[in-house]
C-alpha cells in the first residue's frame, strides 16, 4: 500500500509540476530607448546586446489580474564584466508613483541563469514591467511572472 502510494506520488508530481510551470514573455517582446534600438538583436526568441557598452532594456507584461506577482527571468552574460541586472516595477494607475523591487544581477556566467526579482504587487488597473541593464554580448531569453 505504501509502495503504491509512493509510486503514485512519483508519477503524479512531475505532471503537476509540468502543468503549473510558468511560461513567459519572449525577450524580444521588449522595448529599448530609440538611441539603443540598434544595439539589440533578436536571438532565439530573446535579445542580444551587440553594442560595446551596457544598455537598458524593458519588458512589459500583460497582467490579467491584480495581486502579488513573482517575477523571474532567464538571462546569460558572457563574463562578469557583461552582467545582466534587472528590477521589476509595479505601477499605480492613478499617479506617477511606483514600487520598485530589489535590483538583482546574474551570479554566474556562460550559461542561462535564473534571476529572481521577488514579489511585486500589481494594483487593480495597474501594470507590471521589468527593466534590465544588459552588458555587451549579454542576452535575455524570457521573462515571467
Amino acid at each position: 500500500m505504501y509502495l503504491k502510494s509512493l509510486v503514485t506520488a512519483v508519477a503524479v508530481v512531475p505532471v503537476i509540476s509540468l502543468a503549473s510551470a510558468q511560461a513567459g514573455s519572449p525577450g524580444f517582446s521588449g522595448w529599448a530607448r530609440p538611441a539603443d534600438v540598434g544595439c539589440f538583436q533578436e536571438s532565439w526568441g530573446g535579445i542580444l546586446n551587440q553594442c560595446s557598452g551596457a544598455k537598458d532594456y524593458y519588458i512589459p507584461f500583460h497582467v490579467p489580474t491584480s495581486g502579488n506577482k513573482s517575477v523571474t527571468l532567464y538571462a546569460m552574460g558572457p563574463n562578469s564584466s557583461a552582467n545582466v541586472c534587472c528590477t521589476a516595477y509595479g505601477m499605480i494607475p492613478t499617479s506617477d508613483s511606483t514600487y520598485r523591487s530589489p535590483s538583482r544581477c546574474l551570479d554566474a556566467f556562460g550559461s542561462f541563469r535564473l534571476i529572481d526579482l521577488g514579489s511585486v504587487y500589481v494594483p487593480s488597473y495597474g501594470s507590471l514591467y521589468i527593466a534590465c541593464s544588459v552588458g555587451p554580448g549579454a542576452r535575455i531569453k524570457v521573462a515571467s511572472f
Partner: protein
Amino acid sequence: MPTYGLWIGLGACCVSSLLGYWAQRQEIGTLRGEVAALTEAVAIQRRAQAKPLTKPLTDQWFAQWFARPAAQAAPAVQAAPAAQAAPAAQVVPPSPSAEEVAAEVQNGFLREATDPTWASSAQRSLLDGVAALGLDGRSVWSLECRKHSCRMETIHTSADEGHRFLTQALRPSERPLWEGGMYVEPAEELSDGRVTIITYFLGAAKD
C-alpha cells in the same frame, strides 16, 4: 400681609436657585466623567497606534499591505452549482489611492523602531550614492533612517530634473543606489517651479 408674600416669594426664589445649582453640578459632574472617559479612550488609541511594527518596513510588508484593501473588497468566492453555469460579472476592487498608499507607507515608517548604528550607516551610504549620481540641480532636503528603512526627500530645479534623478536612482545596476525595494511618491511642485520627491528605501526582505 404684603410682607408675608414677599418672604414667600424670596423663599421660592432661593429654593429654585438651589435646585438649579444642584442640577448644574450634576450635569457638570456627568460631563467631566464623559470627558475623562474620552481622554482615556484617545490615550488608549494613541498607545495602540504608537505600538512598534512587528515586522520591518520591507518590500514584503509593502506588497502585503498593498494587497489588503483589494482582498477585503473582493467578493466572496462561492462554488456555483453546475446547473447555474452563467458567468458572474467580475467585480474589480478599486486600487488604494496614491494618497492612501503614501499615508500607509509613512505610518509604517514612523512606527518602525530605530537603530542608530544601522541608520547612520544607511544614511551615509545613501548620501554617497546620491552624490555619485551627480548633484547638479538637486539636493537632499531631508533624510531619515530608522531600523530597516529610510525616507529621503530631494528637491529638484525642475520636473524634468526630478525625472532624470528617479531614472538614475531606480535603475537596475550591479551597484544600485539601494539593494532593497523602493517606493516613490508622486513629485510635488513648489510655487517657484522646483519639485520635491519623497522616496522610501525599504528594508531588504532577508532582514
